[in-house]
């Protein structure tokens, strides 16, 4: 369950605008829905677009580009983000 693999649409399935207060407004073409994403959801989504990933792979990708040392429960937090993105339809289990 915790090691479920997730998939995201390719980057061109989305339009993203970053607003002045750091929030990203995403237009998701397959659904026609607009989502408002607060960090780290946009970064997670971007990392997921590189290819299917479980939480471990996702952590590796994020650590490559970001300093994650400020978070204790990396796995639990990122799994929660993935489930949230899954509910919104931005990632799914293939």
């Amino acid at each position, binding site marked *: 369950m915790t090691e479920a693999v997730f998939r995201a649409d390719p980057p061109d399935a989305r339009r993203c605008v970053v607003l002045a207060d750091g929030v990203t407004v995403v237009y998701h073409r*397959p*659904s026609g829905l607009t989502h408002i994403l607060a960090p780290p959801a946009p970064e997670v989504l971007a990392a997921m677009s590189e290819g299917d990933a479980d939480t471990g792979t996702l952590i590796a990708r994020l650590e490559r580009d970001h300093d994650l040392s400020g978070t204790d429960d990396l796995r639990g937090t990122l799994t929660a983000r993935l489930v949230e993105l899954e*509910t*919104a*339809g931005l990632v*799914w289990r293939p």
Partner: protein
Amino acid sequence: MMTDARLLTRALADPQSALALDAQGWTDLIAMARAEQLIGSLAHRLDGLDLPETVARLCDDARLSARHARTQALWEAEMGRRVLASLGEPVVLLKGTAYVAAGLSAGIGRSIGDCDILVRRGALDAVEKALIGQGGWEWVKEDSYDDAYYREHMHELPPLIHKDRDRMIDVHHTVLPLTARPTPDAESMIAESEELDVSDGGGGLRVLSPPDMICHSAAHLFADGDLAGGLRNLWDIDRLLRDFGEREGFWNRLGQRAELHQLSTPVSRALRLAEILYDTPVDGDLAGPGRAGDLLYVRRLLARDGWGRETRKCLRFAFYIRSHWLRMPPLMLAKHLWTKWRKGQANANGPGSA
């Protein structure tokens, strides 16, 4: 002579004919097309013709709306698929969603409401649990779980609405109410259904076979209320028949399936009406000879004026009574009409003006 929706059916069947309209004619045509939920289909038929400026603009807008409807419908189906995939049950898309998902002409410009899916009766509980448990759907009404009426008499679960997207899904296990007299073989429809092309992760959804699609559409044309939305349903049938009619053995198969589903009469009538109103090429043997009643159906289907209003109230009411006759066993119907008559509430205006 009052205008009727012949204006609309003619424009759909032969878009060139609309070019002769004056400003008032266009105004009437647009109001009718909107009222019959055919504006998107009409806009696509008129695309590329030399239209008055306002009409061209309204058609652009209607095509944009239809594109949005298509995106939303496909997305609801996809979200349903993601939740139901693990059940390993066939999930068959119905009506508008099926037409756009299968890339059929009937889907072009079509307005699409709820997402309708057909599953095996034995799978209902699991489907219901998955949609509510993981999918984020919820009953439109709190007490639906105990809603014996739906479960015992209807052909679908009580409606579910998605809590974030505000979109409804109707889960059917047969295609007509259980109290209706024709009893189409839903299990066989599922067995003969066809899997949609598997694109990236899109596998697992199905649509009815071409003959069953016609059967289902015809069943709905005549079983739904007082033929409300009939011109749109019949336009679906026209488009489907044009897509399938040339296929090897299609008409034969349609005849067989209609018989199996106890839908031979509605299917034949649908073919005749489509031919009359939309010039649909149909198989003469299957359509059968015209019947006197056909003209009443035509008059009822065309009962719409240039303001988009329903006309021919008495005829509409007759069809309303008839629709109850079809839906209820005779004893139930007699009871129902008796109560109405006793209360003296029946009036030519009241019901059916949904």
